[in-house]
């Protein structure tokens, strides 16, 4: 008897589960159309503005056009063979990697420091946040033009350093200083932006963890190290990846401040691509460079995600 009852209950449960599943499937099918409709603009933009140009660039990277010859022809790996034996391209690659090794940790650390500072109870915190965030509201080209004036001989930067007894600096005309100038400008633009993501992340951390840490006797440093950092891992991962991507495609400050010089010391890959495509006029060579940039960015992004996930 008990066994029969149990079988009946099981059958009823299975029938109910199956009905629920069918209903859920029906509901999902009904929701799919509006969901797709809402996603369509974003997906279309992604395909038209991102995927399609990337595919075109990858395909054209295998083509070559000679001067004076109409049209381009299939060239296989020729562009890539030239690229990897071209000291100019290899130097640009090295400069881009160096630039990123210098700027990314600096920007993330400064953005994190500012985020922590400006989430404390300090006077006019909102005003300071706005001021730090403000440069991102100015177009990068306009910021670069302003900084170009600041770095001019007898400009504001020289005047400021002069207060501390430092003599006139060559800034943008020195192969040793120009990259640091670009880093300063890019950081001035970007740090406030990244800081906002980290502030949002900090505000998401429940206060109870800090209170528990205080009860356990943890000081400021220990609280930051054992509570803030682990719980900020997701926004930090996003900032690190997005910042790396943004810095790998830096263009406007380089074009306006240094045009890749002096002595190619700031010839970042994006500027090198622009130069090959529109100044030298070798579009297919530039397409091959674009493909390499895409590959590098994909690999770096994957590694960064992996590293930040594996720590949890």
């Amino acid at each position, binding site marked *: 008897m008990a066994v029969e009852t149990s079988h009946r209950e099981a059958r009823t449960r299975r029938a109910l589960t199956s009905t629920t599943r069918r209903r859920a499937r029906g509901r999902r099918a009904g929701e799919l159309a509006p969901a797709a409709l809402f996603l369509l603009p974003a997906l279309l933009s992604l395909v038209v503005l991102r995927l399609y140009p990337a595919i075109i660039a990858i395909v054209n990277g295998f083509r070559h056009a000679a*001067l004076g010859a109409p049209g381009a022809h299939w060239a296989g790996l020729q562009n890539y063979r030239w690229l990897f034996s071209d000291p*100019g391209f290899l130097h640009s690659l090295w400069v881009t990697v160096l630039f990123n090794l210098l700027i990314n940790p600096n920007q993330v650390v400064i953005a994190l420091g500012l985020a922590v500072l400006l989430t404390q109870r300090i006077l006019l915190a909102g005003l300071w946040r706005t001021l730090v965030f403000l440069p991102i509201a100015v177009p990068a080209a306009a910021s670069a033009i302003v900084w170009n004036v600041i770095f*001019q001989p007898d400009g504001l930067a020289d005047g400021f350093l002069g207060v501390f007894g430092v003599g006139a600096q060559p800034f943008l*005309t020195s*192969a040793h200083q120009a990259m640091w100038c670009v880093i300063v400008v890019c950081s001035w633009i970007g740090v406030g932006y990244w800081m906002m993501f980290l502030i949002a992340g900090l505000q998401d951390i429940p206060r109870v963890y800090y209170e528990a840490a205080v009860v356990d006797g943890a000081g400021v440093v220990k609280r930051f190290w054992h509570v803030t950092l682990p719980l900020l891992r997701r926004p930090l991962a996003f900032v690190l990846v997005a910042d790396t991507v943004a810095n790998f495609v830096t263009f406007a400050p380089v074009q306006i401040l240094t045009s890749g*010089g*002096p002595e190619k010391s700031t010839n970042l890959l994006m500027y090198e691509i622009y130069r090959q495509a529109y100044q030298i006029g070798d579009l297919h060579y530039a397409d091959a460079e674009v493909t390499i940039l895409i590959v590098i960015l994909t690999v770096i992004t994957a590694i960064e995600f992996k590293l930040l996930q594996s720590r949890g």
Partner: protein
Amino acid sequence: MLLVTTGCGSSGDRSGAVTINVLADGQSDPAAMQPAIRLFERTHPDIRIKYSTVPFDQADTAVQSRLSQHDKSIDAYFVDQPRVANLAAQGFLLDLSSLVPQAKRDTLPASYAPGTYQDKLYSLPLWTSAQFLFYNKDLLAKAGVAAPDLDPAHRWTWEEVVAAARKAQQAGAKWGLLFDQTDRYYQLQPLAASAGGGSGIGGADRLHPDIENSGWQKAMSWYGALFKQGIAPRGIDTSQMEPLFNSGKAAFIVAGAWEIQNGNAAKGLHFGVAPHPYFAGGSVAMPSDSWALGVNPFGAHRSQAIDFVKFATLNEQGNATTRQVSGDIPANRKAFATYATGLDRAAKPAPGIGTLLRYELAHSVVHRPTSVGYTQFEDIMTDMFSNVRNGADAGDQLHDASRQLSSAWAHLK
């Protein structure tokens, strides 16, 4: 960064009128071509002009990028004359050879030739150019330096200019010598040419770099030393050079004929004009050439575009009005004659400059080289000039530029 100015009225205010798009470099005031456009539209009521300018440094890039996509929205465009071969080879210029007899008759001979490539005519010259040595009379007088002569028979050497510039600086001038177009091949080619270095392009196919010879080494070492010794300023943009001279901060500037107009307009500036200098023991070399007009073969209104190009170049009045605001030198023979006569008669800065101009254009010109690889050449040379100006070793930079040129041209052969 694209500035757009149009002729008076909108494109729909005259039924049946065709609007053609003219793309120009934006070195001069966007309004500079308006007198010519107004005159053209009055005499050609069925055509209207939409005139767009892009900044000077981006003009060639804009043309290259848009025409490589077979952009139909440009009908006629400004062409830097040494780029004619490159643009024609890429199929970006319409063959205008049917206009050869008229062009030979109506334009200056030295300006006609750069518009041709492989015996075909691809562009018609709007203007020509000449560079002079301009000097600040007050700064030289303060330094006790006798001003250079207008007579080309008493042309100063670069060595004399530098010595005078140093004295002027010792007497209070902020800068000794400026180049109007810092880092541009147009401005600096004559240094190497005067030192016996040639144009920098060799080989039967005009695709072999020749910039490591002693002439180029001498010219670039001299150029680098100017900045190292503080005679010329580092880190100042080309666009600031004329304003520096016009505000009385430099003893000398080597600049185009347009500086006559600009200098005359500068308050409190007392300046004089002398022939373009040369290296002692070297040859006389002065840059020339200027902008020409070409027709886009992919354009939707080629016939109307040709009408505009003919008006702006082959028509005396049309050509004269194109330079009314900018101060450039007209390339139309009759318009040039009127312009040069006017210069001769002008009391300010001095009478007789028209005679110097005619002499220089006839005897001192070095044209930029004709090569399908000129675009790559100019870009790589610009970087090299900039590096030398910023203190890099001239020999190293010439060697590196030569390697880059070989590589860039090898890809494109």
